[in-house]
């Protein structure tokens, strides 16, 4: 006779319940974008190497191990997942001790440039300093600054204003060679080196930054994207 697995509402012979813990697979975290093996590469600049897009009926591969150049002397590797303490405390996110210790020091980090919508809900198109219409999407509304996120992010000021899904891990990167001009769009993974600063700061676009990077490395050209995998599938 098949045993009833459920407690009965009436009757004396309640089935004994056994707590059998679910044997879930351990979390395969894949290869994070910065758990990379050291690489070769001329002068620390990385050439384009497109990752194959996974066929539609297979699991998307985690990004391939990235051959990053060896860290220059005095530069620390920084990862987005290192930014904040886990578990979260009773209030907001708290910067980890390691990141706090890197305040004012040179770091390298891999991420993707946030795309910021240039148009607003008004019908007047935005223009550059010379009155030329700006493209619908570009890197940054704030001249000389771009946002580096852990993965691909689009921001629409028209639809969400500042209440969007910009991750709190976003790094606010000032680009000295682009002072006073919009930072051009570069799609894909970027490895940026610069000086980290930590702590809340009001930005000119109304946001509050927590972590910022003063870029040292040259601004990459569009064909110098890291081959870390297809960002749209992450």
């Amino acid at each position, binding site marked *: 006779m098949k045993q009833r697995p459920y407690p009965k509402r009436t009757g004396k012979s309640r089935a004994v319940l056994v707590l059998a813990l679910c044997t*879930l697979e351990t979390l395969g975290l894949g290869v994070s974008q910065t758990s990379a093996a050291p690489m070769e590469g001329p002068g620390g600049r990385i050439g384009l190497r497109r990752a194959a897009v996974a066929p539609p009926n297979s699991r998307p591969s985690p990004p391939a191990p990235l051959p990053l150049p060896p860290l220059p002397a005095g530069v620390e590797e920084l990862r987005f997942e290192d930014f904040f303490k886990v578990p979260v405390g009773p209030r907001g996110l708290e910067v980890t001790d390691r990141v706090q210790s890197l305040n004012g020091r040179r770091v390298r980090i891999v991420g993707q440039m946030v795309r910021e919508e240039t148009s607003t809900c008004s019908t007047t198109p935005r223009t550059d300093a010379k009155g030329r219409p700006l493209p619908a999407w570009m890197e940054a509304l704030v001249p000389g600054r771009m946002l580096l996120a852990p993965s691909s992010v689009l921001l629409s000021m028209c639809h969400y204003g500042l209440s969007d899904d910009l991750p709190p*891990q976003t790094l606010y990167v000032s680009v000295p060679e682009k002072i006073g001009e919009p930072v051009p769009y570069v799609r894909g993974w970027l490895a940026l080196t610069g000086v980290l600063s930590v702590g809340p700061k009001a930005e000119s676009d109304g946001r509050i930054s927590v972590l910022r990077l003063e870029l040292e490395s040259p601004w990459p050209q569009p064909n110098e994207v890291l081959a870390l995998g297809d960002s749209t599938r992450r």
Partner: protein
Amino acid sequence: MKHNPLIQLLNASILVLAGAQSSEAASAITRLTPPSALFSFGDSSAPYISRFLPGQRFDLQCTVAPDSGKTVTSVSFKVDGKPLKGTVNLTPATVTGLPAGTTVATLRAYFNTAAKVHTFEATATLNDGSTAAATGNFEIVKTPSTGAVKNVIFMIGDGMGATHRTAARIMSRGVEMGKALEPLAMDTFPSTGMAMTASLNSIITDSAPGAACYSTGNKSNNNQQGVFPDDTLDKFDNPRVEYIGEYLARTQGAWLGIVTTSDVFDATPAAFAVHTQDRGAGTGICDQYLDEAAVKANLRVLLGGGRKWFLPSTTAGSARADASDYVLPAELGSGWGVAQGTLDKDRDLLAAFQAQGFQYASNRETLLSVPATATKLLGLFALSNMNVAKDKIDGRRSASTVVNDYGFPDQPMLDEMTEKALQVLSKNKKGFCLMVEGASIDKQAHAMDTERWILDTIEFDRAVAKAKAFAEKNRNTLVIVAADHECAGVAVIGASTVTNAALTTRAASGGGSAQLRTGVVGVYESAGFPSYALAPDGYPTTTDVDYKMLVGYAGNADRYEDWLTNSKPLRDSQQPFNNVAPLSTYPSGPLNRDVAGAFLVTGQVPGSSAVHSASDIPVSAYGPGNILFTGVYDNTEVFFRVMRLMGLR
């Protein structure tokens, strides 16, 4: 749309008359609020679109499109032919595409105590002395002055249709030889009916009007809660309808409690306290919980996720921004006697709640340790939505690290939150209104994550049991179990005909439908009676049993399906850690999950998420007068039947 030939004839006559006048004056009232079929279709018969309690406040409003070159100088309102006193505020319409000079005229916080259908008229006067007028109607619903019910508990399973209940019953109670071995707690309620869920502008509602129908008795457009649509872009200036919590606080001194497993700014919780046409305006919504709901509705309990709206923008993890904040027009603030608000993204809303006497709990441990004497309680257990029941319970069993990955390893279950809310609210001798939402029944049905919405329905039912137990001891308590809508068109289609081991092999085979449909999906008698075992914590020991229950989706987007329980939920874009490891390794959509089996189920809807359906939803009632909730009725009727049992006092 009406199809009565006589009405169509009348409409045609009206059009002819309007045409005759157009050569002289094309100025017109293009919107008249509250909405009515009389205004929209010239139909003065039932059903009446807008209905209110005697004394329930609501705004009268019209939009006037003047003829070219003219301006609107004044607007007056009449009800049953009698001019109304009070200030009619004129403000420019700001939605695009309207004629120049289009003006919105509002009379705030009107009420009427005479139970019958009323006709109302708006007359606009223009600068050349010409006028434009329009007529609509609304009903004041007869409601007794006293009632047997003092406390009302709305248990809302977001997206919970009949099948969500069926699946939870099969998994948590079992079926043998054709009979359920036990009912769910919500099945034990003596009366059940079905509610129709269409919103003001669609047969398919979303959660905002789908929940606000219970708290206002009225319809609204999708995305809107506690308001009627208007012709301005302002998120917070829409014509309002008084909420049940506001009404009961004002007339009876009752308290309000809101409990959810989602972010507290989400549509269903906010639809019991905050009036807005934009369910996404999180900063303003959460500010108004304190600025307005705590003052006007006696909000005493607020539990859920969404801490990101309560932290000053200078704190990492905050989502506060001026763009999602609120500032009410002065005329609205004075008309309703509420705070106007200010753009204050740097506000420490959490500390502000505490300064108002709210005890704050940040996790399960601190929630359970809140003293029994507490009379105000704020619990924010995650920065955004809380984790779902499966991941919370697996975390407690040390069977998964999902809650750790989210950064909140110690989140309470919904029944624990419900018990604590009742402990606080029951201190008020003048009664209370409590809304408890099982939010992720909907969210996981959208994700077509079968086991996760089933476990969330089980979690919700365990909270229902707590509410019922309270009502058993406090006989003047009415418990309503409902949903805002059905989500995903779910159906139990049968059961697997293979063991879990065999299914696991097939799911890794890449064999597509030949491996995962043929020979697996058992229908009719092949389904038999899937059998799950419960752990002492009340949840299944495993959801991957041999010959498991199988669920299909009528509202599905493209998805891969292997029938096995997903070890990880889909990524939630609102989570602050969403974009970094390990959450960034979670599947991002139903095409990035279960792909090894190569069994693609082609969606009937575009996008990557299953959709709400128009299916009626079950409503179950426990407590005095529960018999009123049998039958098939409009969702707004629930509000009026609850109030019939509570009385106006």
